[in-house]
């Protein structure tokens, strides 16, 4: 108890210096938490993929379409459970800044994506109506979409005015499930293409292929691609994870830089705390000599210095960790809506922050401890700070 009291009083001896150090650690931990959140969220889109889903697209690029006719052929392969076509519609909802995914899909899309939770009634209502759409709960909340609301999109990839009616709102099954999509009937898009631009009808951008056994994914991928070898639209089939990683790696340099920056911040706070501890220990050289003279051991001195370093690191770090949540929330609100399909502090971010705080507290104390223990008592008494 006495030692803890002494550690607290020592830490508060220079209130301004300690406060600034604690503030520095707090800001650094918040920055660390924010950067790590962005990085982990970026990669969590990959983690959200399912092992039993494959993506079949044109081998050149997924912006080039595949014919409807491929669907039956893919379905005929042994081990394929479901095949669902999809078209990236894009379009503009009121303003270009209102970004969220708008995708035309086959009705069995919800079977391929069981993590998109849609009530049976909503799904029946959706199926019955030609221009019906289903929206994720996050964008429903953001844009105040309710069942029966009209959504009008201005088409860009598919020009024209497109009217939809909200017939269902899906809930995300998991925390990292994308709840920012608007899904509508592929038939609705296709029928209009037949009328307006027949050359673009009966096409999808990619097929989601659900397989019975994820262990056969590679084999089935090869079988699918072999089916369309030497055709006008050769395919490339890969796991959903590999497909998503392709998108993530496109931003790889920025994410890698953010990753490095987050750890560099920890290095900076280590220097800040170490500087404070070195100054404190230097000022107390005579006091440490007194402690040694009175019979206090190296272990006692180590405890005092390490305890103070840990106290400062934990106070600043604890405050930082507590503030990560509201700051991340504020950051999310400041970002363009739908920029991130989901944005939350992953537990691993907090674990890393806590580990970083403990490491900083420990490392910052090493040099002052080494110095305090190495200084002879008589030299300590001669020390003039």
């Amino acid at each position, binding site marked *: 108890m006495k030692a803890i009291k002494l550690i607290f009083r020592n830490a508060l001896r220079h209130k301004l210096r300690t406060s600034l150090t604690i503030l520095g650690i707090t800001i650094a931990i918040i920055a660390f938490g924010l950067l790590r959140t962005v990085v982990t969220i970026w990669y969590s889109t990959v983690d959200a993929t399912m092992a039993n889903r494959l993506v079949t697209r044109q081998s050149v690029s997924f912006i080039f379409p595949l014919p409807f006719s491929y669907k039956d052929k893919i379905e005929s392969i042994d081990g394929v459970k479901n095949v669902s076509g999809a078209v990236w519609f894009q379009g503009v909802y009121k303003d270009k800044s209102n970004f969220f995914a708008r995708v035309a899909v086959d009705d069995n899309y919800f079977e391929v994506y069981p993590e998109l939770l849609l009530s049976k009634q909503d799904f029946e209502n959706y199926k019955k109506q030609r221009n019906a759409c289903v929206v994720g709960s996050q964008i429903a909340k953001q844009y105040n979409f309710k069942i029966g609301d009209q959504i009008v999109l201005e088409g860009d990839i598919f020009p024209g005015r497109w009217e939809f009616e909200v017939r269902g709102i899906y809930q995300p099954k998991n925390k990292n499930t994308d709840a920012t999509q608007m899904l509508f009937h592929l038939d609705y898009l296709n029928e209009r293409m037949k009328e307006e631009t027949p050359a673009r009808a009966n096409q999808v951008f990619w097929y989601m292929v659900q397989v019975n056994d994820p262990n056969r994914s590679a084999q089935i991928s090869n079988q699918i691609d072999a089916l369309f070898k030497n055709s006008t639209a050769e395919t490339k089939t890969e796991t959903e994870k590999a497909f998503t990683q392709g998108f993530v790696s496109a931003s790889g340099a920025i994410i890698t830089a953010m990753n490095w920056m987050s750890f560099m911040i920890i290095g900076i706070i280590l220097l800040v705390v170490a500087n404070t501890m070195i100054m404190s220990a230097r000022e107390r050289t005579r006091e440490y000599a007194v402690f040694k003279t009175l*019979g206090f051991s190296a272990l006692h001195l180590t405890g005092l210095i390490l305890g103070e370093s840990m106290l400062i690191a934990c106070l600043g770090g604890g405050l930082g960790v507590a503030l990560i949540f509201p700051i991340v929330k504020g950051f999310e609100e400041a970002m363009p809506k739908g920029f991130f399909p989901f944005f939350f502090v992953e537990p691993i971010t907090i674990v890393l922050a806590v580990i970083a705080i403990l490491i900083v507290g420990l490392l910052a104390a090493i040099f002052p401890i080494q110095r305090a223990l190495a200084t002879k008592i008589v030299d300590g008494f001669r020390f003039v700070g």
Partner: protein
Amino acid sequence: MNGIIQVKNLSKSYWRNSLEIPVLRDITLDVQEGEFLALMGPSGSGKTTLLNLIAGIDRPTNGEVTVAGTNIAKLGESALAKWRSSNVGFVFQFYNLIPVLTAFENVELPLLLTKLSKSERKKHVEATLNIVGLGDRMAHYPKQLSGGQEQRVAIARAVVTDPVILVADEPTGDLDRKSAEEVLTLIDRLNKEFKKTIIVVTHDPHAAEKASRKLHLDKGDLV
């Protein structure tokens, strides 16, 4: 008669680069139990070094220091620290109190290394502070005390564990005449009333007058 402190052929040198600087040369002396010894001499004569060696806060280059039967030159660092905590009380010229601790807590510090309970420690600390006349200043921090009061707290801290010997390095060197007199009277009382073996380093003849024996050092030799 063997003294409680036996110093035999004690030498101490410091090294500056490869140059040996002898500070003490072949010192031999005995201090009897209950004796009040004053070590005198000009600056640089080696009196503080001799005191540090006897108190076990410095290591001799050659020779032996035996205190209450223990040859402290042969003790390892941790054993020596433990030995100091139970055998030696220190009083410094600049008091060296811990500024963030009250007078009570400063005096209690050496007792934290003992097995005494909290209530026993409290009893010891209060009794000791009463002896040095600071029973009403227990909750005061060093900066709230005068120099003389700080030194009396330091003396209380030095004797609270009832050590075998009390060593004081220029205990009145930083005090005004009145405070110095009070401190010297207190040290004298500890010797006469409580039978403490005391070694005081001083270059002040007045301070040395209280001692039962005076030894003079000059350039590392006893003269």
